[in-house]
C-alpha cells in the first residue's frame, strides 16, 4: 500500500532516529509490526497535520495495517519519492490557513489562542514551527467547542492533502 512519511532532514525518522535508505531500497523492521514499538510506521493523509516534519515522502509499505487512526505499520517499507510541494513556503501557507480558520469562529480566550497562532504563522517553517501553529489553532477550536481540536486537525489535514496534491480516502 502507499502512504506518507514525514522525516527530518537526511531521511531521518523523527522518533527512532533511523535513517531511511535512498528511494527504492527497502527498510525492514527487526521485529513484527506493533504500534509505536516496532515496524515501519507511515501516515494516511487524514492525520498529516499532527506529524509534520521537514521532509515529506511518499512510501510503499509491504502489507501495511492501520493500527491507529491514520497510522499504518508494516514489516518493511521503502521511499518512493519526496513530495516536493512540502517546503517552508507551503508550511507558512499552512500556518496562515490554520490561524485564519481558527480566528473565524473564536472569541474570548479562544480568540487569544488564535491570535497567538496567527502571530506565529509568519515564522512558520516546514519543521516544528508550522506544527506548533496547527496545534495552537486546534487548541483555540477546542476552547470554543468540545471536540473542536479533533475537527480542526481533520480540517488541517484535508488542507494539507489538497495543497500537496496527495490523494485522500
Amino acid at each position, binding site marked *: 500500500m502507499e502512504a506518507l512519511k514525514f522525516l527530518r532532514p537526511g531521511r531521518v525518522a*523523527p522518533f527512532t532516529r533511523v535513517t531511511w535508505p535512498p528511494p527504492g531500497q527497502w527498510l525492514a523492521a527487526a521485529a513484527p509490526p*506493533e504500534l*509505536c*514499538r516496532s515496524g515501519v510506521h507511515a501516515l494516511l493523509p487524514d492525520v498529516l497535520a499532527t*506529524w509534520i516534519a521537514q521532509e515529506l515522502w511518499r512510501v510503499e509499505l509491504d502489507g501495511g495495517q492501520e493500527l491507529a487512526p491514520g*497510522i499504518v505499520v508494516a514489516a518493511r517499507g521503502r521511499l518512493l519519492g519526496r513530495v516536493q510541494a512540502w517546503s517552508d513556503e507551503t508550511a507558512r501557507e499552512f500556518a496562515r490557513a490554520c490561524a485564519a480558520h481558527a480566528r473565524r469562529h473564536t472569541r474570548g480566550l479562544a480568540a487569544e489562542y488564535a491570535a497567538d497562532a496567527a502571530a506565529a504563522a509568519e515564522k512558520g517553517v516546514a519543521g516544528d514551527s508550522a*506544527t506548533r501553529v496547527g496545534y495552537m489553532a486546534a487548541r483555540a477550536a477546542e476552547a470554543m467547542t*468540545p471536540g473542536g481540536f479533533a475537527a480542526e486537525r481533520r480540517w488541517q489535514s484535508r488542507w494539507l492533502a489538497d495543497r500537496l496534491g496527495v490523494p485522500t480516502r
Partner: protein
Amino acid sequence: MSVPELTCEELVEVVTDYLEGGMPAERRLLFEEHLAFCEGCQTYLEQMRETIRLTGTLMEDDLEPSARDALLGVLRDWKRR
C-alpha cells in the same frame, strides 16, 4: 470531551519509560504526538538520550582517581540518608 494529550510535565515524568520501551502503545502515541509540536520536549528527550549514551560508555578507568573518590563519597552519603 477533553483532548487526550500529555503535558510537558507528564512527559518529563515518563521519559524513562519511553526510552526503555516500557510504555503501552496508546501512551507512546500520545508521547510522540506531544513531541511532534513541542520543541522543548524534543530537546529534553535528546539530552536524555545523550546522557544515557555517554554514561553507558563510561568505564571505571576513564575516571581520574580523585573524581572516582568524589563520586563514591557522594554515593555513600546518599545511601546513608
